[in-house]
């Protein structure tokens, strides 16, 4: 059975990779969660303490509430954008899909400042509201502020995955429904939405997990009573070796896996794959005049809302002093001049690191999803669970784990500890962003019909050839979606990176932003660097979408559509 052996080998290699670069380093850090602090013996007493502590119980409920509400609001933003751009012939579809990814890239620190300057209690919007109407709306206060920012920040997960799924729906299903007399909302509700479910679930579960585990947003709003913040604050305090931070990390991982399992249950036992042909996408039609106006208004409104932090970032990067005013006092290009003259290597490093990491991510993502969905390898689901669990591991924990595990391991030839070689940053990014690519790939594979693979094998193609020539091309949309999300979010990763950078010449962009944002004078250059990150990712994702569209058109012509 050579076929079986290949799948076992692949599964084994994946398991080895996850074990060495995720399980062991993280285990080396969080084992203290299971240790009695007075004797050093194994114990669960720390978990008892967790549930006995009212602050932690509150934090848990707050995190849950925020995650749930964020999925709701993110869906409200993402669904119209995804539907209009995939369903209708729409001038700026690619542009909208591209701009849709931008909110995912919120550069650390500068993003926070930009948001406060725009939406904060004394930001542009509130200063204007106060001037005109004498009111002040606390957009950025408390849990509701967190929900607003999380929804704006993470709705692209739904947009990207849902769009990929909509593009993958078999047109004949829709035509059949129309022939049977189903139209409009009914068609959408009964046929289109259910068929796009894997994509929506993939996106929604990412939003849920991300909002549940997210650290950046609550920290930006200084909301402390949430789980991820509690873990972070405890782990990164000076000199404190309280096990509770690690206990919370363990609980975050377990809960994330639990919710992932629930979302899998929801999609189990259903067949989402198309019939005979591969991806063909929904029938696109033109809109009537008034429909067009309405759709454009809605889309422009949504885009303005979700892009406002980046508009504010743009102003910040060109502004001189911006303090307690609607707009900066004056404008200058000096910040960009400074960035280009001193820190160009950050940009090239970031392109290199995030590019390699995202490529690995989709490769591993395709492999894991294939092993999980198409083979019978024992314990295959655990590959999925463990890889997705990385989402809930705080970056600091991964960073410390890598230092602890790989500092004494010298890489042959260059004779340097692996922990201080730049490759370790790439591996950290790969692990941290793997869940995004994995979910996208799994959703894409859900939509590929098994019969196509069987046909290929009946015609004499081997397993490997089938995967290469049939499965991967049919998954292309999902793979690109995974690549774009992993790449975009990897460009602005900070917490693990900050732990692992050992030479300024190896540092990525996020580190550069951090360095600038340590001083009052660095705000402008920091914003300029942040905006460059946004532009890099936006052009990357534009090219990716361009590539999909071109591919689809070529497919369409070759199959006679």
């Amino acid at each position, binding site marked *: 059975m050579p076929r079986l052996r290949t799948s076992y080998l692949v599964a084994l290699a994946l398991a080895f990779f996850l074990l060495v670069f995720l399980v062991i380093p993280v285990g080396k850090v969080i084992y203290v969660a299971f240790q009695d*602090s*007075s004797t*050093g013996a194994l114990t669960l*007493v*720390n978990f008892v*303490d967790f549930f*006995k*502590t*009212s*602050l932690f119980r509150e934090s848990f409920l707050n995190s849950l509430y925020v995650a749930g509400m964020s999925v709701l609001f993110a869906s409200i933003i993402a669904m119209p954008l995804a539907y209009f751009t995939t369903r209708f012939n729409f001038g700026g579809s690619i542009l909208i899909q591209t701009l849709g990814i931008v909110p995912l890239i919120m550069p650390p620190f500068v993003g926070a*400042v930009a948001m*406060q*300057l725009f939406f*904060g*209690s*004394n*930001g542009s919007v509130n200063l204007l509201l106060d001037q005109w109407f004498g009111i002040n709306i606390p957009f950025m206060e*408390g849990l509701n502020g967190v929900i607003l920012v999380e929804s704006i920040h993470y709705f692209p997960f739904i947009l990207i995955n849902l769009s990929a799924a909509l593009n993958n729906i078999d047109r004949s299903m829709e035509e059949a429904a129309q022939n049977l007399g189903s139209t409009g909302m009914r068609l959408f509700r009964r046929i289109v939405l259910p068929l796009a479910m894997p994509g929506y679930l993939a996106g929604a579960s990412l939003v849920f997990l991300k909002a549940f585990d997210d650290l950046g947003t609550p920290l930006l709003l*200084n909301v*402390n*009573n949430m789980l991820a913040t509690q873990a972070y*604050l405890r782990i*990164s*305090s*000076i*000199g*404190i*070796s*309280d096990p*509770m931070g690690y206990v919370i990390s363990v609980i975050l991982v377990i809960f994330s896996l639990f919710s992932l399992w629930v979302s899998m249950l929801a999609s189990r036992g259903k067949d989402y794959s198309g019939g005979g042909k591969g991806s063909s996408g929904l029938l696109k039609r033109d809109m009537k005049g008034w429909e067009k106006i309405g759709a454009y208004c809605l889309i422009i409104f949504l885009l303005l809302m979700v892009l406002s932090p980046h508009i504010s970032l743009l102003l910040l990067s060109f502004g*001189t*002093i*911006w*303090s*307690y*005013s609607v707009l900066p006092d004056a404008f200058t290009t000096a910040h960009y001049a400074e960035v280009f003259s001193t820190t160009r290597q950050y940009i090239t490093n970031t392109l290199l690191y995030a590019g390699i990491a995202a490529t690995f991510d989709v490769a591993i993502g395709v492999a894991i999803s294939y092993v999980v969905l198409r083979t019978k390898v024992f314990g295959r689901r655990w590959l999925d669970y463990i890889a997705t669990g990385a989402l809930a591991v705080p970056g*600091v924990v991964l960073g*410390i784990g890598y*230092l*602890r595990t790989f*500092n*004494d391991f010298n890489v042959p030839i260059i004779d340097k*500890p692996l922990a*201080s070689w730049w490759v370790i940053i790439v591996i950290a990014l790969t692990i941290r962003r793997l869940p995004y690519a994995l979910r996208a790939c799994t959703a894409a594979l859900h939509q590929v019909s098994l019969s196509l693979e069987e046909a290929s094998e009946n015609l004499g193609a081997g397993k490997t050839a089938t995967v290469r020539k049939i499965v991967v091309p049919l998954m292309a949309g999902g793979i690109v979606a995974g690549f774009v999300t992993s790449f975009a979010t990897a460009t602005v990763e900070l917490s693990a990176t*900050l*732990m692992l*950078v*050992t*030479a*300024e010449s190896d540092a990525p962009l996020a*580190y550069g932003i951090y*360095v*600038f*944002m*340590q*001083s*009052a*004078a*660095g*705000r402008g250059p920091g914003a300029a660097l942040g905006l460059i990150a946004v532009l890099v990712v936006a052009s990357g994702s534009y090219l990716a979408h361009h590539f999909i569209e071109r591919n689809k058109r070529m497919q369409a012509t070759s199959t006679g559509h």
Partner: protein
Amino acid sequence: MLLRGSCRTIMGRLALSAGLLIFLALPAQALEKQLTVVTSYPKDLTTAFKQAFEKQHPDVKVEMLKKKTTAGVKYIQETASNNSSDLFWASAPDAFEVLKEDGLLAKYTVKATGIPDVIGSYPINDPDGFYKGFAGSGYGIMWNTRYLKAKKIPVPQEWNDLTQSVYHGHTGMSAPSRSGTTHLTVETLLQGEGWDKGWALMKEIAGNFHTVTERSFGVPDGVNSGQFGVGIVIDFFGLSSKASGFPVDFVYPTVTTLVPANIAIVKNAPHPEAAAAFIEFLLSEAGQDMLLDPKIMRLPVRPETYAKAPKDFPNPFTDHSIGAKVKFDVVKSKSRYNLVNSMFDVMITYRLDDLRKATKAIQDAEKAMAGKDNAEAAKLIAEAKALIAALPIDETKSLDTEFAATFKKKRKKATDKVTGRQAEVEQQWDSMVKDNYAKAVKLANKAKSM
């Protein structure tokens, strides 16, 4: 082969004679070619010193590795077995204490002379000889002038001013567990005003907070943006923000302490000679002069450097009102370090909403009672204030080493034994604090309705 061989001898001779030349020109010993500095300082400071040092020692290439103080400490701890860092350069003395206790710093005796023993009332160098102070900084109050003007809020001068109701929701600070320098401010207040009065004052100030920021730079960031109007910050944040053009200003209150910012050689440093040379440069006249750069703005430890300072620049060696009021007890501060951090977080950071609500209720009640003579209401308000001020432990307990060990519990050996668990203690404190704040709201509301 022959060619290459002779080439090598020529190169060798050249190098030798070049070395000799350098040796003759500079009486100092030859330094290593590299120097790696782990630092929490901003670019403005590190780049300036890197360039100046490399100019003086053209053979040495300096690598400035910037990490947050906490990340820097963890980095040095985790890489100790295969160390590649030479110097640790940061503000908070407690970060150096942590490294010192772990045995990760090397002793070094400074050759430079003319540096006094204390700045304000704080010893400049580590008494055990591990880390050295190179600049002083003190805590104070910064404010956004546009913000205060627009909201018609007076400029604060003293800690007590910040307890007034006019500042409610307009002030901000970082948490001591997040920033070593913030910790020193809190400890200074506790030592200067006494344990009970100090905490009471701290909570009265905190009751007006708009926010407790996650990192110390979050405070000047918030004030610079106008997110809140007044911040409790370390001097160079205020002074350098002002120098960068933001509409802000800064003042030292009477009760403050000056704390040295430090540098130390890491144990088993790969380039110890270059590291020592860097410390000497930092403490030399040329190095000290650089601290007065408008983007850096730290208090030099060389008294004569102040002669070159701009007008109005604070000079702790002549103006004894700065940082001299409190006789700072380092041993006391160290023994209860984590305990004070934990108390601050439990009573203030994590229960800020409850504390703010209680403070607002009391302020409203006091406003309603102003000018009226109602002994019963006044009694209720006093009770409510006492409830907010109430502490879960007294000073004696805070200095009880066995109790404080609950918050440190670093088991070095398997035989070490620590009693109690931090989470358990914190839960008890939390339920008391939450209860008290809720009761205070009720009492204040009752007083107001009278």
